[in-house]
């Protein structure tokens, strides 16, 4: 009892407004911003366990727990194409005990194309945890030896070159639709259920090319000589294939990356937000985080909450013309 009262008092001294609202909401267990986290934090994951996003959430969950002196419990909730998890974060009490990983799909593209109760603006970004670049690739027996050959073929015969993308609403698929709208270069888009199915179809020669996340699953196929990367999509070459050009330097305006950001409900108190942001920043250099996620996917420079939010804002403006409800 004494401790509880003490906590309430310190909180009240800290930030008057928050203390008031907290006192109004509950008189029983009030956690102050200063001793955050004093109970387990729910870390929502809008994807199934096992993928690169899950690895990111889990290793950051462990690291943040260590940094801030608490426990982060990862909860996978893939239903509704990630919308259910995002909704849970958006509608949670902004006390720092519910955070979540998100990417373009659940955060930006899904609310743009479906009637959901949240938008990008309902979240407070807390930094970028990992970033996975994308690339164009073909199988080793492909007739397209470079990115120009592939794009020129698509230009010459619109809609006949089949290209796999991981998911109908992935940012990769949307980016190619935008390309078609802006430049008239038209591929036959073949959405697959994810990278795995895409790679399978590429290896089996069922599709002409793939636009895919530049992750380790592709890398191992490239190492084995089964898949050939043609171009990194964007301005920066892939760390894994420094000799492979980028789309921009080859003269094609195609760019997208999967940014794994950390988010909380938008009214998160500034004190807790900066605590978590500092934690993310420290975790970028954490040995376990780097080892588990992969060195080249963990950013070297910290992108803070405000800048992470900007990345997604840009994404929204870029795709607004394509994704009207």
């Amino acid at each position, binding site marked *: 009892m004494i401790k509880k009262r003490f906590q309430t008092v310190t909180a009240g001294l800290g930030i008057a407004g928050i203390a008031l609202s907290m006192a109004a909401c509950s008189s029983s267990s009030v956690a102050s911003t200063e001793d955050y986290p004093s109970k387990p934090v729910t870390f929502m994951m809008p994807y199934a366990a*096992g993928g690169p996003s899950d690895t990111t959430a889990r290793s950051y969950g462990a690291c943040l727990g260590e940094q801030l002196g608490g426990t982060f419990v990862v909860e*996978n909730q893939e*239903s509704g194409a990630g919308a259910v998890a995002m909704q849970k974060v958006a509608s949670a009490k902004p006390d720092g005990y519910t955070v979540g990983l998100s990417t373009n799909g659940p955060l930006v593209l899904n609310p743009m194309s479906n009637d959901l109760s949240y938008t990008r603006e309902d979240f407070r970004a807390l930094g970028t945890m990992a970033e996975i670049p994308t690339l164009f690739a073909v199988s080793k027996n492909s007739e397209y030896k470079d990115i120009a050959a592939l794009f020129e073929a698509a230009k010459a015969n619109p809609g006949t070159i089949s290209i796999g993308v991981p998911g109908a609403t992935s940012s990769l698929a949307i980016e190619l639709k935008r390309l078609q709208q802006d430049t008239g270069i038209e591929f036959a888009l073949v*959405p697959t259920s994810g990278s795995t199915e895409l790679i*399978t179809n590429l290896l089996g020669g069922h599709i002409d090319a793939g636009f895919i996340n530049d992750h380790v699953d592709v890398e191992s196929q490239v190492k084995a000589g089964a898949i050939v990367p043609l171009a990194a999509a964007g301005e920066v070459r892939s760390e894994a294939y420094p000799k492979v050009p980028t789309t921009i330097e080859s003269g094609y305006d195609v760019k997208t990356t999967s940014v794994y950001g950390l988010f909380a409900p938008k009214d998160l108190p500034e004190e807790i937000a900066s605590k978590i942001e500092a934690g993310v920043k420290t975790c970028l250099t954490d040995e376990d985080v780097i080892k588990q996620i992969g060195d080249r996917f963990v950013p070297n420079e910290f992108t803070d909450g405000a800048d992470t939010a900007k990345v997604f804002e840009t994404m929204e403006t870029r795709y607004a013309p394509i994704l009207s409800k």
Partner: protein
Amino acid sequence: MDTLSNLGNGFSIAFDPTNLLFVFIGVVIGTAIGVLPGLGPTATIALLLPITYTMDPTASIIMLAGIYYGSMYGGTITSVLLRLPGEAASVVTTFDGYQMTKQGRAGTALGIAAIGSFIGGTVAIIGLTFMAPMLARIALSMGPSAFVALMIMGLFLVTSLGTGSAIKSVCMAAVGLLLATVGQDPIDGSARFTFGQVPLLGGLDFVAVAMGLFGVAELIKTLEQTEKAQVIKTKIKNIWPSRKDMKDSAGAIGRGSALGFFIGILPGGGGVISSLASYATEKKLAKDPSRFGKGAIEGVAGPETANNASSSSAFIPLLVLGIPSNVVLAMIFGALLMHGITPGPQLMTEHSGLFWGVIASMYVGNLMLLILNVPLVGVFIQMLRVRQGILVAFSLLIVLIGVYSINNSSFDMWVVLAFGVLGWIMSKTGFDPAPLVLAFVLGPILEKSFRQSMLISGGSLDIFITDPASAIIFAVILVMIGFKVFGGRLKKRPAPVLPSQIADSTTAAGSGDRSTASGESQNEKVTENTK
């Protein structure tokens, strides 16, 4: 010889005391979660994933693999005793397994399932040991068009699944296909039939639908009966199947091993499809198909063998190519990644200790499961002695927890209850849920593959002929239709005509354009049904 020495090396790793312990832990956990209805290997492995990060990679994969194939054993138990599928792949076992329990042959059903599972699992591991690279390449040659053909072949089996009239079976299959369209469109991502419900964007969950239609529906049915009528006479002493049972099941176990092994390799294959395919095959081949659904031992032996075979062969694409063929293997993929090992074509050479250690551990694990399960059968049967009222309440509770654990979603709990009521109404009106479930599994794959094929070919149906894999499967479908149409007439003729007729129809279907063209029109028909 190389393979044998590698395998020997693998056994030396698998017999390392630590690894041996983890095989044991894995199969015990697997059996346990298999027994608990709704709680399947997917949820369990997701829960245990963080623990494995601190373990040795070989030991952790050995344990996770053990959970996966162990759950295939455990899933049988409640399917047979309570008509509650312990996990998705055991749905089929409820058809005849539960009927056997009602006839007092629960022990025999569980016994033959354990034996079949052991044989199926072992056959698949032998296949995995010696033919993995070749088989992985076959799996790759199956593109979207071949999947269309395979799914149509699967739908052909629909009518043979139900116990009632063929028309009712087809109706149920149509309902299944319709239910499968709920959720986001696989190609353009738009929402279909979600009625503004966000959880429906991902579609209805298979486990929730199947658990409702089979398990919960059965629980509701027991509520109608008086306490006295519910006592099931069970002879516990007959655990070991008799010589006659073994003879009856031998064919089913053999075919189940082969079928399950092949289906497990296919992307998206695995438990449910393999057991459904095995059941339908057994019923088709049976001299007296009417016995099925009324406690035919082949109906338990075949599917149980098949789902174990598939859970072992599903490792082939992952270990050889680095491609996980279902959700469980995707998580094992994730576990390997966390250890800094990327599954891929190089796994076999770069981490040969892990590769062969895991394979060898599967031989050991399957043997452990057999030794564990046979005596446990007697223990599990005691469950039937629990008063029905208590058993029903507990079963429902565990079903709800299990279903919740799949997606951490309370919405799925409503789905399971709604389908429970639907399943009860269906059983009152003589509709069999089996064709619905099969169509619900095949529908989304058929739709996605067909639309992918059309995107690849630019809308031309030629792709089904030019792709050799799909052409072959369509030819087989034609032969099947031929048998269905002309089979009856052939049987009335003198016996010697039959073999030459079969040979004729096979060669005609294999080579002629004529036959594949009609395969195409067949395909159009079915996809129209899907829409």
